[in-house]
C-alpha cells in the first residue's frame, strides 16, 4: 500500500497538453519550412508537411512519455545509461538520415520533396529527443541536488537552533548540552556521507544523536525502541538511509504530543531489511510531500525496495530493503 507522503516522481513534461502545443508548433514550423523550401509554394504540400511533422511530434511525445515513465522505476543508474545511449543513438540517427538523403537524391531523381518531408520528421524527432534528454538531465541534477542537500543542508539543524535559542535563557546548561549534540550531529553527518557505506551501528549511533536533538525539541514524549539483533551491527548500509526513514516517521507519523518510534532490523534472504514504525497519526500528507523518503527512493536501484505499509495496529511502517550485491 502506498501512502500519500511517499514522494511521487516529479511529473515528466510530456503531458497531453504539452504534446498538443508541441504539435501545433510543429505544424507551423513544418508549414513555414515547406513554404521556404518549396519554391512552387504549393499549399497542399505545406499542409502535408505540417501534418506529418505534427504526427511525428505526437507519436514521439507519447513514446517519450512512456519511456520516461518506465525510466522513473530505474533509478539513477538507469538514467545515466539511458543518457549515454541517447548520445550514441543520436549519432546513428544522423548518419542514417544522411545516408537516406543521399539515397533519395541519387536514385529518386529530384528528391526534394522527400527531403523536405523527412527533414520535417527529423526536426520533430530531434526536438522530442532534446526535450527528453533535457528532462533526464534535469532529473539527474535534481537528484544530485537532493543528495547534496541531504548531505550538506543540515535541515534538521534549523529546528534545533530555535529550541537552542529558547534554552539559552531558560536553561544554559541544557543549551550547552544541545550545542554539543548539534556539533556531533553535523560533524558526523559530514563524516558518514563521505562514505559509500557504513556499518549499521554507526548509522544507528547517528540516528540516536539525531533523535536526541529531536527529543530536546519535542520534549520527553518522544519514545524510541531500537530492536537491532547483535549479529547485524556490522552490516553495511548507505549513510543516512535509516536517518531518512526516521525523519520521515517523525515528520509525518508522530502526533504533536509525541509517541513511540520503533527501529527494527532483520536479515532476509535478499538482504538487510530496515524498518521504522510510527504511530501513524502525524499531520496529513499533503504539502511538501515526502522530502526524506523521496531522497531515499531516488538513491535506490529499485523503487519497490522502499515501501510503506500499515500494520494491523494502525501504525505506519516504512521498510527499506538493502539488497546484497
Amino acid at each position: 500500500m502506498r501512502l500519500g507522503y511517499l514522494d511521487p516522481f516529479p511529473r515528466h513534461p510530456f503531458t497531453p497538453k504539452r504534446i498538443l502545443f508541441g504539435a501545433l508548433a510543429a505544424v507551423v514550423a513544418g508549414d513555414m519550412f515547406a513554404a521556404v523550401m518549396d519554391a512552387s509554394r504549393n499549399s497542399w504540400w505545406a499542409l502535408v508537411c505540417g501534418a506529418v511533422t505534427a504526427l511525428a511530434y505526437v507519436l514521439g511525445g507519447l513514446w517519450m512519455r512512456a519511456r520516461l515513465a518506465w525510466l522513473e522505476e530505474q533509478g539513477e543508474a538507469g538514467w545515466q545509461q539511458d543518457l549515454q545511449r541517447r548520445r550514441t543513438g543520436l549519432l546513428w540517427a544522423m548518419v542514417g538520415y544522411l545516408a537516406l538523403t543521399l539515397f533519395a537524391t541519387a536514385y529518386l531523381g529530384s528528391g526534394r520533396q522527400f527531403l523536405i518531408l523527412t527533414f520535417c520528421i527529423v526536426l520533430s524527432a530531434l526536438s522530442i529527443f532534446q526535450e527528453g534528454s533535457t528532462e533526464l538531465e534535469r532529473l539527474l541534477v535534481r537528484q544530485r541536488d537532493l543528495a547534496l542537500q541531504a548531505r550538506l543542508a543540515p535541515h534538521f539543524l534549523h529546528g534545533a537552533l530555535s529550541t537552542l535559542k529558547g534554552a539559552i535563557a531558560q536553561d544554559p546548561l541544557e543549551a550547552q548540552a544541545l550545542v554539543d549534540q548539534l556539533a556531533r550531529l553535523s560533524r558526523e553527518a559530514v563524516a558518514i556521507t563521505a562514505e559509500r557505506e557504513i556499518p549499521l551501528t554507526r548509522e544507528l549511533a547517528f540516528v540516536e544523536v539525531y533523535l536526541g536533538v529531536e527529543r530536546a525539541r519535542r520534549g520527553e514524549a518522544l519514545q524510541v525502541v531500537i530492536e537491532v539483533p547483535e549479529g547485524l551491527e556490522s552490516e553495511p548500509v548507505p549513510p543516512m538511509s535509516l536517518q531518512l526513514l526516521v525523519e520521515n516517521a517523525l515528520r509525518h507519523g508522530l502526533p504533536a504530543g509525541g509517541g513511540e518510534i520503533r527501529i527494527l532490523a532483520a536479515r532476509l534472504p535478499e538482504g538487510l531489511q530496515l524498518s521504522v514504525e510510527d504511530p501513524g497519526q502525524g499531520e496529513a500528507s499533503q504539502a511538501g510531500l515526502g522530502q526524506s523518503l523521496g531522497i531515499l527512493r531516488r538513491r535506490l536501484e529499485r523503487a519497490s525496495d522502499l515501501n510503506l505499509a500499515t500494520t494491523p495496529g494502525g501504525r505506519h511502517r516504512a521498510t527499506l530493503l538493502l539488497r546484497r550485491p
Partner: protein
Amino acid sequence: MIRAVVIEDDARSRALLASYLQELPGLEVVGEAADGLEGRDLIERLRPDAVFLDVELPGLSGPQLARSLVEPRPALVFVTAHAEHAVEAFRLGAAHYLMKPVNRVELAQALTRLYPAQARHEWLRIPARSRGRLRLLDPQEVEALVADLGDCQAWSSEGVLRVEGTLAQWEERLAPVGFLRVHRNALVRLEAIQGLEAGVIQLPSGSLPLSRRRREELEQALERRIPGPAATPRP
C-alpha cells in the same frame, strides 16, 4: 602546575575555554590573546607549558604562529572547527587538537594524554547536570553510564543525571578505573555490580542488559575483580 595560554580571536569562545581550563586543578591559565602576533609575544614572554591555539587568527594564523616559534616550544593544542586542519596541525608538531565547540570531556581527555604524569584524579570527574546545576561526579559515585539517544546519563545514588560527553569518550577515560562496556549503550563500574544472571546486570539503581558478545569479557573482568583504587587514573 601546568601553565597554559589561550589564543583565540572570538572573545566568548576564549572565555569559555579558559573557564574550562581553570576548572581543572593543577592547571593555570597564565595568559590570553586575541590575535596571532599578540599570542606570539605572550608565548615568548610567559614561556607557558601548553598553548591552546585557534587555527584561524587575525595577524598571524595558528599554523604561521606555530612555524614562527623557536625551541623550546610549548605543547601546542590546536582548536579548530574544521577537521581538515588536523592534518596540517600535526605536521606542524601539534601535540593535540580539539574540535570546536570544545567540551570539558575532550579537553580533560586531551590533557590527560598530554600530561599523563601530572594527570589529577579530579580531571576524571564527570560533569553532570543535577537540578539545573553543574555537578562534577567522582567516578566512584557512578554505577553506570548509559547512552540514551545521544545523551549520556549517569546512574548514581542521586538518580539518573545527564552528563557531558559521549559513551565512547567515557569508555576510553574510565576503562583504567574499572569501568567496562557491557552493551552498545552502557558502561558499568565493575565494583557496582551486585549480581549477574540471564544476561542481565543488577545494579543498585536498576538492571542493564548484557550483550552476548561482551559476556565473556565481563565474566573475566569480574573474576579478576579489578580492584578499584579509583584515586589514580592511569593514562
